[in-house]
């Protein structure tokens, strides 16, 4: 998370002094991949980088910058954009990396020249050294379209290279593309219009953006941004030139060649779209909720994590420290068949005879060993909540499979082009709560990880929409890790708790967003969305995405788990945990009607949400108590990582308000439900 935000800030500061066109001697040439969304920039990036060097790639398209080294070049990926501008926060990220580029590799979708060449012409007008990669060239042939590449290259004044990212065609010409990039044919009228501003800024790139009304870029050079009319003039001129170029280079041999995606159409219409959505959700449920979070995790966590990893580590520690080990043999229905206690006042290695008996008893089928150490430090690191035992099991054998499963689904959804269509279908519904269909994208991604979804809100048009979605994400959307723990607990509790949970959360969602929609000033932006063609995702690409995102997530998450476990462990040793429990007792036992140990879950929940829900595992709860506990923990504060990112994205005022709001709402609603159902 951090790497991402810092990366884009660095870009900004580095970019200021450089003159857009010239490369300072000694520094490496900065090559930026730019293009419209869904043109395959990332495939080129992966090819050039060979591997992800700096993994800061987040769902919901690339809302961040990824960079890598290739030969003598620094290669940068950028968020997909239809033009260099500042209509959304996401576009600003793209704008800044493009401004800082020495060379721009402009990836263009051959099937959408009308749309894509707008950016190409803008890059050329910016005076950037450009080469065009004409991607999807194989699709063009399939659709009986002919593009006169030579003519296009001649009109643009830059190299145009046909590629197919999927078939890896044209990849051998990428070096050529970078080396032969050059400043293209800029419209004379535009050049004249910019000449005065360019003298101030030192580069046409920034002069163009200032003329097009970019307030931030104008501020960097203490000059006045152009008016809306200036921008419209430039845009219309550019649009006309694009249309003119396309007319000269593109020939359709047959109108029947036009791709007609029936499935794509069906996802839009509610009559077919809602059943499709239901089907997609069902598949997700069976894959993540049932297969991964029940079967796979059950095996990895209990068999590998607790049974092999923790058992051996704890047993090794018991060799050298005074310990008492209780072993229970469980039957088919988790009932205790046999139980024995082994005491090693000098450590296991001092009493080999008893150690041997322990070993043979504790390796029987269905055995569960509970290690209690006398030494508090041993307890802290290797005990029940041990920093090196529970945390590692939790991270590697519970969270990792879940996160992999979820990112896999998310990658498929993203690559298939389904999300924008879902956004269109749900547009009207979301209008009612002050959002447009686009808001579906961060919300859906929030079910993966709230922290990342907080950043994805940058794709939304206005500040008020970002505020509403940010609040929804923190209050009601459970992240994948938390969702899994919830699903696990609810599976124990039954159908009625599931219904109560869903109805409660849904009611809060509607109430919260309706109130915010009324209170927040201004108006939300209407939907304007380019719909990508539906396609079957490439497995290779999906797997690659899944693994690198999971890696990035684990890299960022693990620290908090160790810190959290250490914190809880220390509180346990120093008795602070019972002080906290007693402090919250009136609230926990009287109002929420839960055992007082449930207060642990709240403290853990502040560190990580799923961690909090997991804190409920070891407490004996009735079905209704589980329901109340889960509702409370779902609404309760976002995890630390998410909180920090929210503060960065939305400012401390909004961040703190949401954080406190979740405390109040969680206990109020949780208690209300408790008073009714328990």
């Amino acid at each position: 998370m951090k790497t991402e935000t810092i990366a884009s800030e660095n870009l900004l500061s580095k970019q200021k002094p450089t003159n857009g066109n010239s490369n300072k001697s000694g520094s490496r040439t900065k090559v930026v991949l730019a293009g419209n969304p869904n043109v395959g920039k990332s495939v080129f990036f992966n090819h050039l980088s060979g591997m992800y060097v700096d993994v800061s790639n987040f769902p919901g398209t690339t809302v961040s910058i990824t960079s890598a080294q290739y030969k003598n070049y620094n290669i940068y990926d950028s968020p997909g954009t239809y033009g260099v501008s500042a209509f959304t926060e996401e576009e600003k990220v793209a704008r800044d990396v493009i401004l800082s580029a020495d060379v721009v590799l402009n990836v263009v979708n051959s099937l959408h020249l009308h749309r894509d060449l707008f950016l190409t012409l803008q890059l050329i007008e910016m005076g950037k050294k450009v080469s065009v990669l004409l991607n999807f060239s194989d699709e063009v042939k399939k659709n009986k379209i002919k593009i006169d590449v030579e003519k296009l290259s001649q009109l643009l004044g830059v190299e145009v290279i046909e590629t197919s990212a999927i078939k890896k065609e044209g990849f051998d010409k990428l070096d050529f593309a970078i080396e032969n990039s050059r400043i293209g044919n800029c419209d004379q009228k535009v050049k004249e219009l910019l000449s005065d501003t360019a003298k101030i800024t030192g580069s046409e790139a920034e002069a163009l953006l200032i003329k097009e009304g970019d307030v931030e870029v104008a501020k960097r050079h203490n000059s006045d941004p152009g008016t809306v009319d200036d921008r419209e003039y430039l845009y219309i001129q550019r649009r006309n030139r694009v249309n003119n170029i396309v007319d000269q280079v593109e020939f359709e041999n047959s109108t029947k060649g036009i791709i007609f995606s029936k499935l794509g159409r069906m996802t839009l219409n509610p009559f077919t779209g809602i059943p499709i959505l239901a089907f997609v959700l069902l598949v997700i449920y069976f894959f993540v909720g049932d297969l991964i979070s029940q079967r796979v995790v059950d095996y990895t966590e209990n068999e590998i994590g607790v049974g092999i990893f923790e058992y051996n580590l704890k047993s090794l520690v018991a060799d050298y420290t005074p310990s008492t080990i209780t072993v229970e043999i469980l039957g088919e229905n988790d009932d205790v068949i046999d139980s024995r206690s082994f005491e090693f006042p000098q450590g296991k290695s001092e009493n080999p005879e008893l150690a041997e008996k322990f070993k043979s008893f504790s390796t029987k089928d269905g055995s569960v060993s509970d290690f209690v150490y006398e030494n508090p430090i041993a307890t802290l690191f290797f005990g029940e909540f041990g920093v090196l035992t529970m945390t590692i099991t939790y991270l590697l054998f519970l969270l990792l499979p879940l996160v992999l499963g979820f990112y896999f689904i998310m990658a498929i959804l993203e690559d298939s082009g389904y999300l924008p269509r879902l956004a269109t279908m749900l547009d009207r519904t979301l209008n009612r709560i002050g959002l447009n269909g686009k808001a579906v994208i961060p919300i859906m991604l929030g079910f993966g990880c709230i922290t990342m979804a907080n950043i994805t809100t940058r794709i939304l048009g206005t500040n008020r929409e970002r505020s509403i979605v940010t609040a929804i994400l923190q209050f009601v959307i459970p992240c994948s890790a938390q969702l899994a723990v919830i699903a696990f607990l609810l599976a124990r509790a039954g159908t009625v708790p599931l219904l109560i949970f869903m109805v409660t959360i849904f009611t809060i969602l509607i109430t919260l967003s309706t109130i915010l929609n009324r209170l927040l000033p201004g108006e939300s932006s209407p939907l304007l969305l380019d719909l990508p063609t539906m396609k079957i995702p490439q497995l290779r690409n999906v797997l690659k995405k899944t693994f690198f995102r999971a890696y990035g997530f684990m890299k960022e998450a693990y620290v908090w788990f160790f810190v959290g476990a250490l914190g809880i462990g220390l509180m346990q040793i120093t008795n602070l945990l019972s002080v906290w429990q007693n402090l919250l007792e009136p609230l926990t036992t009287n109002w929420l009607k839960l055992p007082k140990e449930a207060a642990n879950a709240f403290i853990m929940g502040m560190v990580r949400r799923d961690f909090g829900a997991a804190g409920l595992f070891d407490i004996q709860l009735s079905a209704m108590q589980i329901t109340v506990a889960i509702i409370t923990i779902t609404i309760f504060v976002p995890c630390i990582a998410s909180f920090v990112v929210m503060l960065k994205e939305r400012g401390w005022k909004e961040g703190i308000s949401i954080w406190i709001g979740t405390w109040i709402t969680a206990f109020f609603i949780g208690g209300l439900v408790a008073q009714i159902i328990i």
Partner: protein
Amino acid sequence: MALTLDKALKGHSLTIAKLPNGDIKSQLIRLGITEGLTVSCIEKLPGGTIVLRRNRQEIALGSALAKSIEIVL
């Protein structure tokens, strides 16, 4: 009263007569929707969200936006 895009029906071929002013106009132009352009309406959802198509490109517009775009059938 000029005809606006929200009145278009599925299957209609229509010409854009006037776009609303402001940022949104620039965004529309950038995506390829300009005054004088002929497009087809390929989907109209309950609630008024419109999906337009031009060549191979499909663009979704919310009902509020559709209401502010003048068209000629």
